[in-house]
């Protein structure tokens, strides 16, 4: 009973906006749900797999551009952007992972190489014609369910919740199944895992592919709600850092961590924004919170909740 208390409370909290007519509340809930989903996607690689990525914006941006390009240049139905983005994000995750892990990169080196990939994609998006270069891509406003654009924001929120559910389901699958057990073994000790028959490079690459695919789906949701994309939005380092922060603050390698992290980060952001208008204050506080978490509570906020539940 008590173990179920936290998930139950989160579930009720998640459903609250449906009963409300407040646009503000729905928007806030949508942003939080997308952040939580992206944090969870990072957590699959960075938490469960111990693959600390500094460049997850690469997957977010690839997914977003895949969706935007397919509908604006090729006239495809925007809903097809979802499978396309997942495929692109998954493939990129697998390729980046496979090449990095084959070369034996781990820890800080892996973090840096993901950062470099995101930066390389940003420069590419900035200079290619198909991405619209620096001026980006504008998706025509045409709200219709068949067109993946909704007049009622609660539908967008429902989709964000769906993505969050998908990512959390993937995390739960990792936490309980064979693949996840092998992944965590690899995280704890690669040699011992190999000695017990675990293919280390394949396990880590597959994990990054899964994480990349989920992250790319988040990119699609972004494009469909803002209808605009440019290289800075798609591949910004802030995006990568926010995903990492949410997972780390909430509790990396736990199922509930990113959910808690997203709620806390958005609470900080909205409180400070309403108090101080200067840009930079909220992200600076995230940095401070990260330092405190790493220094004092390495397991994340979920530890406090677990202790009292």
């Amino acid at each position, binding site marked *: 009973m008590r173990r179920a208390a936290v998930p139950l409370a989160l579930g009720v909290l998640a459903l609250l906006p449906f009963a409300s007519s407040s646009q503000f509340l729905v928007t806030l809930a949508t942003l939080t749900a997308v952040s939580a989903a992206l944090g969870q996607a990072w957590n699959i690689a960075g938490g469960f797999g111990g693959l*600390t990525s500094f460049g997850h914006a690469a997957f977010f941006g690839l997914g977003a551009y895949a969706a935007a390009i397919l509908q604006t240049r090729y006239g495809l139905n925007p809903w097809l952007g979802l499978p396309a983005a997942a495929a692109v994000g998954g493939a990129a995750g697998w390729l980046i992972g496979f090449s990095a892990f084959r070369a034996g990169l781990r820890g800080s080196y892996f973090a840096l190489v993901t950062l470099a990939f995101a930066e390389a994609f940003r*420069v590419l998006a900035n200079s290619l014609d198909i991405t619209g270069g620096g001026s980006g891509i504008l998706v025509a406003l045409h709200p219709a369910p068949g067109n993946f654009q909704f007049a009622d924001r609660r539908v967008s929120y429902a989709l964000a919740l769906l993505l969050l559910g998908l990512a959390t389901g993937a995390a739960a699958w990792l936490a309980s199944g064979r693949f996840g057990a092998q992944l965590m073994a690899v995280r704890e000790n690669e040699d011992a895992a190999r000695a017990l028959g675990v293919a280390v490079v394949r396990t880590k690459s597959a994990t990054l592919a899964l994480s990349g695919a989920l992250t790319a789906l988040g990119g699609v949701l972004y494009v469909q709600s803002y209808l605009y994309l440019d290289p800075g939005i798609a591949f910004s380092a802030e995006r990568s850092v926010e995903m990492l922060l949410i997972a780390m603050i909430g509790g990396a390698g736990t199922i509930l961590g990113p959910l808690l992290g997203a709620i806390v980060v958005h609470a900080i952001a909205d409180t400070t924004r309403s108090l101080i208008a200067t840009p930079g204050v909220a992200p*600076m506080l995230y940095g401070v919170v990260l330092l405190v978490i790493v220094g004092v509570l390495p397991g994340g906020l979920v530890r406090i909740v677990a202790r009292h539940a």
Partner: protein
Amino acid sequence: MTALLLPAIVGGLLTGGVYALVALGLTLIYGVLHIVNFAHGALLMAAMFGAWLLAAKLGLDPLLALPLLTAAMFAVGWALYRFVIGPVSRGQDRAILLATLGVAVVIDNGALMLFTGDSRTIETPYALAMLQAGPLLLPEAKLIAFVCALLLAALLWAFMALTDTGRAIRAVAREPEGAMLVGIRPQRMFALAYGIGTACLGAAACLLLPSFYVSPQVGESFVLIAFTIVVLGGMGSFPGALVGGLLVGVTENLGGLYLGESLGPICVPLLFIAVLLLRPTGLFGAAR
């Protein structure tokens, strides 16, 4: 195109000299503490704002501010390690990485808060001056920066090789237990090394500012440049950082020349990825 090639290479070498100084700080910190200092770019950006403040508000020429800012950045780096990074990370690799990331986030956004996202430059009497050398026109500011950077690199090398403190730092880097036995306290040396590595940024900032601009975002681009240099030269290698700095400066300029303004910047991340994937020990393979 060939007419532009030589100036591009020479210009790249000049900038590369200052890059090398930035990378020397990073490689020193890695070589001694064995940590990847992700805050390096943010600290450089902070130092550049320091130099900008001194120049714009007090009218102090960056070259005159150099000793002052170098000392100030030493203090900042020392305190940062002593009071933040050391205690937060407790010697764990991932915690160190995340701690330096957290510091970078705080500095980047602190700068955004204080200075907004605008780019700022300063005016010096030599900013636009050119020096004729054969067929080449050399920008005086970059030439001064290059010479100063190499002098400072030599000074740093001499300090590490010839002074007792330098030797003690190197001893800790190689044999922490052995160093402890002869009475050297590793944590003190770590803070010292982090301070010296950060001091390099104070000097580099003063050399960069006359020909560069500063904004809260520059730290991010410098972090990749600095790591590319250090990885290229071999993590922890002094000569590697010097040669790597020059190479990256030239690569950047040639990329701009051949690939154009918008695609040119891809050279640095691509070079970085290629080195890490194909030759992680770096060109000189000094460190593991």
